[in-house]
């Protein structure tokens, strides 16, 4: 038997993707390819479909037309039952950072691990590790989110997105409510994860200084990529 190991396929392929809401086309024939271990910044004015792109990749929405392939699998062919499995392989940080206010930082971060069916001990161990990786050593893991600053909440959300060790991290407007220094530290943090083998896609209306390796995909109204 001949087994040839070729180059890995791209992590994300958008092929002439159109997304309409009623008569309004948010994305029009958008095409791009993202390789593994890329750092991609998706930028454009409000309403140009940055969040829509992220939602489409996470299979939270279906495109009106076109093909989206994630990790070699066309999303259109993934069964509804398999969606939770897909979402576990993608870390998502939504624009509105949602932390469960009645649960501690550690419990918030451990939640995806428990939801993935791993033990509570494993979940707490992974949560502690990832909190360390996002630089929250000095935050008491038993603290409730209400007592955290905006940038720390952002880091907790990133930790939660990373705790299941995803290959892809989708971050929507992480810098919107942060000052310059905090925004820069978040970018540095994301860059560290790219170095550790995670592909990062960052959606932002305005971009701070990005690492040299970052690719920028600009979206205009009815974007074509």
């Amino acid at each position, binding site marked *: 038997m001949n087994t040839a190991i070729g180059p890995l396929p791209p992590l994300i392929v958008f092929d002439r993707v159109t997304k309409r809401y009623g008569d309004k086309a948010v994305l029009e024939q958008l095409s791009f390819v993202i390789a593994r271990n890329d750092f991609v910044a998706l930028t454009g004015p409000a309403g140009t479909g940055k969040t829509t792109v992220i939602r489409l990749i*996470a299979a*939270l929405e279906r495109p009106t037309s076109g093909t989206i392939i994630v990790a070699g699998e066309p999303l259109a062919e993934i069964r509804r039952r398999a969606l939770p499995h897909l*979402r576990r392989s993608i870390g998502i940080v939504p624009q509105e950072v949602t932390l*469960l206010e009645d649960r501690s930082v550690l419990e918030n971060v451990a*939640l995806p691990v*428990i*939801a993935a069916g791993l*033990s509570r001990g494993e979940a707490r161990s992974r949560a502690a590790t990832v909190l360390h990786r996002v630089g929250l050593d000095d935050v008491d893991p038993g603290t409730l989110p209400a007592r955290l600053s905006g940038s720390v909440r952002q880091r907790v959300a990133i930790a939660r997105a990373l705790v299941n060790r995803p290959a892809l991290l989708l971050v929507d407007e992480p810098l919107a409510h942060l000052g310059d220094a905090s925004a820069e530290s978040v970018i540095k943090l994301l860059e560290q994860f790219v170095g550790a083998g995670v592909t990062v896609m960052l959606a932002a209306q305005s971009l701070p200084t990005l690492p040299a390796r970052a690719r920028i995909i600009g979206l205009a109204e009815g974007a074509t990529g």
Partner: protein
Amino acid sequence: MSAVSERLYALRQALRVIAQQPGRFYLSVIIAGAALALPLVVVALTLAALPTWKAAKLGPEISVFVKIGTAPREVEALRARLTTVSDVSDVRLIPRDQAFAELSKRSGLAAGAADSRSNPLPDTLVARFAFTVDPAAIERTAVEVRQWSGVDAVQSEIGWFRRLSALRQAGLAVVVGLTSLVALLIVTALIGAAQMTIQLRPDETRLLQLVGARPRFVRRPYAYVGALTLGTGAGLAIGMAWITLALIGRREGALASVLSSAGVPPWFPLALVLAASLLGGAVGAIGAWAQMKRFQPW
């Protein structure tokens, strides 16, 4: 291990939901308990009253008049045959001489004034039926017995019993109807409660869907809330039945003895709690499922 941790997480979440809305939980338990107590108390009271009814010999009767001149041995054979008829609980013989003597006494005739040789009364067999028998079955038996050799006539005065049976049927229909209605209300209330709880905690549901939790993982805490509600309600219903029996003078442990006297196994209360818990769990899960369909993660 993961299955255990998922269930422990769901149980903690269920207890958290209950702790956040204790009033709603207690109200649901009381309503469920009252609904389950209604049939349970009726059944327990009925079972408790059965020995008294049996002792009071309150069953409906038919009188079988034997042809005059029938030999005592044949009368006895008729009696034995009557005893074997379905639903007949006992048969007693009123000999014609005894009946004549009583008649003479009631009518004021002096003893011996009436000649027993001119006694026009027949031997009579009185067959009593079980209290639970269908009045139509008594009528059928009366018609059948009338055809037997040696039988002159059969009298079935069961009008009172027919009315009582109709009343009993109506009472049963009311109890079943009320129980079904309240059960339907409980199911609706539990589904509504699960839906409302999810609506009040949208962040958690969206977040769980976003991080790839399977739908049953999201639903499970609400199933547990339903199970805890109906299970506790069933326990409350058993308590109500116990108290009711105690109030009518049955001694401690009366419920168990009443149930066992009717052939109900001793594990019935536990089975009732378990069955109610399972039903509550299923209803809670259905409510959560219906609400989650309306949810879009993030």
